[in-house]
């Protein structure tokens, strides 16, 4: 039996207090490790600092970092790369993920194994996925160039990682391979929540397979696909490991997204103030983008 404290938390009138006490550690930790650093970030972005030292005299508030940012071609280039990558990878992952989910949602022998197998890339850590694809896209003995030659698409080895256009595609394919299983898993969960009665009823009414897909599966899948779309988009927006280890943002910054630019400005060039400004803008874009997307599919999350 628990000892009664002076504060009798078992009494209904004080129970809501216990709720707050239980939440306190989580709130404190999140405040210290997420909220407080975010405030520092915004503060840093408004100062002209190279390496921040807490306790050092504050530099005067300036919008210099943001002015420099909006007039820098590198920033606009990074925006463009991010947009291209987000669209390519999200679209690729959605197509691959939804079609594999529809495929294994059929009833057949071994479907459990097929389901697990098709989502296996989800379990491969991003850095390992990069190792695999860096070799597949190798410029001298890579599998992909050999395949392209075999298929008659080119007549020589392609320097995937060191040519700007090709590097973007190598990166996109790596990210799609790593990202589509999530879409597949979410879609399957959505498909399974559709009651079988709906299909049976539609069949009685004489609906064809295509009609059943168009008028039952698709509309009922929409809410979960909306959330998935947002989550995949945010993942591409924020990704660091795949891009950093595969291309490092190069060649010629052709794969440098906003996320990579933030990191390199801080830890490559030690411009913490400027880097924070890039990061803050990235976050604002993320928030606006997901609000726009979620606004289209309300009542999810």
């Amino acid at each position, binding site marked *: 039996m*628990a*000892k*009664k404290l002076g504060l009798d*938390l078992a009494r209904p009138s004080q129970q*809501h207090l216990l*709720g707050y006490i239980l*939440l306190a*550690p*989580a709130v404190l*930790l999140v405040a210290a*490790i*997420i909220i407080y*650093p*975010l405030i*520092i*970030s915004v503060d*840093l972005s408004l100062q002209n600092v190279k390496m921040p030292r*807490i306790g050092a005299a504050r530099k005067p508030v300036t919008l210099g970092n943001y002015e420099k940012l909006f007039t820098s071609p590198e920033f606009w280039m990074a925006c463009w790369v991010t947009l291209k990558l987000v669209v390519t990878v999200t679209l690729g992952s959605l197509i691959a993920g939804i079609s*594999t989910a529809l495929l294994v949602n059929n009833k*057949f022998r071994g479907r459990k194994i097929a389901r*697990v*197998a*098709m*989502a*296996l*890339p989800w*379990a*491969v*850590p*991003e*850095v*390992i*996925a990069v*190792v*695999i694809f860096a*070799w*597949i896209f190798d410029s001298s*003995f890579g*599998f992909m160039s*050999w395949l392209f030659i075999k298929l008659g698409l080119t007549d020589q080895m392609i320097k995937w990682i060191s040519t700007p256009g090709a590097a973007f595609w190598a990166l996109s394919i790596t990210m799609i391979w790593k990202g589509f299983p999530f879409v597949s*898993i*979410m879609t399957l*969960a959505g498909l399974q929540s559709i009651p079988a009665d709906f299909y049976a009823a539609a069949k009685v009414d004489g609906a064809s397979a295509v009609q059943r897909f168009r008028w039952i599966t698709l509309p009922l899948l929409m809410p*979960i696909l909306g*959330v998935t779309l947002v*989550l995949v988009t*945010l993942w591409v927006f*924020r990704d*660091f*490991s795949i891009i950093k280890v595969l291309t490092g943002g190069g060649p010629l910054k052709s794969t440098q997204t906003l996320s*990579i630019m*933030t*990191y390199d400005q*801080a*830890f490559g060039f030690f411009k913490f103030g400027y880097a924070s400004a890039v*990061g*803050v803008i990235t*976050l604002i874009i993320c928030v606006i983008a997901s609000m726009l997307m979620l606004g289209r599919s309300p009542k*999810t*999350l």
Partner: protein
Amino acid sequence: MERTPLQSILLYLAIITTAGIILFPIYWLFITALASTDELSSLPPTFIPRDPDWAIFSRVLTERPIFLWLFNSTIVALGSVILSMIVSVLAGYGLSRFRVRGGQSLGLFILTAKMLPATLLVIPLFAVFRNIGMIGSLWTVIIAHSTLIIPFTTWMLKGYFDTIPRELEQAAMVDGCGPMAAMMRVVLPISTPGLAATALYAFVLSWADYAYARTFLQGAQTNWTANMGIASMRGEYTTDWNEISAAAVFVATPIMLIYLFLERYLVGGLTAGAEK
């Protein structure tokens, strides 16, 4: 739904082809580790090595501190799991059982946590940790990981606690248990499956990280995590593909095995919060 034999064959064909394309890169990783150097530097590529070089796995273990890296990754992941579980069991239970102001906005908060670019957050965290002299310590990564994991684990656990009838605790409290004792002795023991699934999900999230570890531990080679070690083996000009692939097999296999055997639990974690 009835299928004609032709449709069945087409379905199986489609499934086998798709699975083959998806799994090919993983197969390729193993093949690259096992193939001889000559086979790696020739075209057409070798699909089945003539003389698989199994010794590569023991060789890479002596040449690179793989076990140390794996050990560090395990410490970080276990530390993050323990810390985030303690905090989120309390928070999840609080949200499930008590009316807390602002509790409804948890879903929104999780989404916000998903939006935060790691590269933005590491800048101030690096500054803070450097000022208190913690850079290079595994604790920095544990604290960062667990905080980022907490919103998700709290959400999963709240959902799980919601499925447990309140009457159980009420009965215990009638028998004289305090509210905390009722939680510890009645609710937690029957929540083991939910706790295990949540912990597993947290472990995988922590194991996969590269950004935080790289930023905080780069200077402390003995504290490198597995992902950092592997990334460091990818040279700027030349890479020993036999060696890096064998090392990658060591890092990827534990997580793939966890996934293969416990897929059901992990998938629950992934979809939790999305379909409410």
